[in-house]
């Protein structure tokens, strides 16, 4: 079923249709989200205007985890069911996830300095997030380290699955241990503890980042599929002439 649904040829047709939609959604969500976040949303009763960093920090951190989860699912499907498109989806997600993790760490430092009084602390949340960044970098290095692409994919897929233990650690670090980082404001039992005037720009920016991820994923997947085709054609020509 998966084989039929996600054949590369079918993907090329479907992605061609989806690409302009993802581009449009990214721009639209980001435009409204930025306007609400930077202009309309009020200052926080405690943190003042500095709260506006939240509208990129939190969506970037969510995407860092979302991309890793997507990568782990794709890697598992690739390893177990040997689906080539899943392998390529994992490979195409890694740079986007790494970028979002970096941005979450950077904007977090920019927020931490004025509010906490420090750019960085080695608490459980910040440290586990840094580990996630290194997992992404490790994956990217490993997937390109082999002459045989299939072996690179296999080794790096195992790394992604092993590293997945870090995802629940990141999510629950703020509940399991004392941390300087605050506990969850939105995804928590009892509903969000964040006023709707601040929740809307946050959710819109999260949608913008999600649409952006899908946009870049489609672009990179198309590129990988065509690169594979080029490789096959070159091999065929070498063997034909030999």
């Amino acid at each position: 079923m998966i084989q039929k649904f996600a054949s590369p040829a079918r993907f090329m047709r479907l992605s061609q249709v989806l690409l302009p939609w993802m581009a449009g959604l990214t721009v639209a969500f980001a435009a409204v989200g930025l306007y609400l976040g930077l202009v309309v949303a009020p200052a926080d009763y405690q943190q003042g205007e500095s709260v506006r960093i939240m509208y990129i920090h939190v969506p970037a951190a969510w995407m860092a985890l979302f991309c890793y989860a997507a990568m782990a699912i794709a890697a598992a499907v690739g390893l177990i069911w040997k689906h080539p498109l899943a392998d390529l989806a994992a490979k195409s997600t890694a740079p986007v996830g790494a970028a979002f993790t970096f941005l979450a760490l950077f904007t977090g430092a920019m927020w931490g300095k004025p509010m906490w009084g420090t750019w960085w602390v080695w608490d459980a949340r910040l440290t586990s997030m840094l580990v996630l960044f290194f997992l992404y970098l490790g994956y990217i290095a490993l997937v390109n380290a082999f002459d045989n692409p299939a072996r690179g994919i296999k080794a790096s897929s195992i790394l992604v699955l092993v590293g997945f233990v870090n995802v629940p650690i990141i999510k629950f670090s703020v509940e399991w241990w004392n941390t300087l980082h605050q506990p969850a404001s939105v995804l928590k039992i009892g509903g969000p503890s964040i006023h709707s005037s601040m929740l809307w720009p946050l959710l819109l920016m999260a949608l913008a980042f999600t649409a952006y991820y899908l946009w870049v994923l489609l672009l990179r997947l198309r590129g990988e599929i065509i690169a594979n085709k080029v490789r096959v054609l070159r091999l065929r020509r070498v063997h034909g002439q030999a």
Partner: protein
Amino acid sequence: MESLAAFFDMGGYGVYIWPGYVLTAVVLVGMLVASIRFLRSNEARLQALQAENGEPSGEA
């Protein structure tokens, strides 16, 4: 003008907020441009190969 200056000052937190937003924009646009280039270069390679082989240069 004054309200614009106040907007960029962000209650004194502008020096922390704006670098965050600007770097986010730079990284995300950079990743997008790199991905489009990656796709375009592979498309060009495929077309060149298909032209040499005398195949019709269709999509996928």
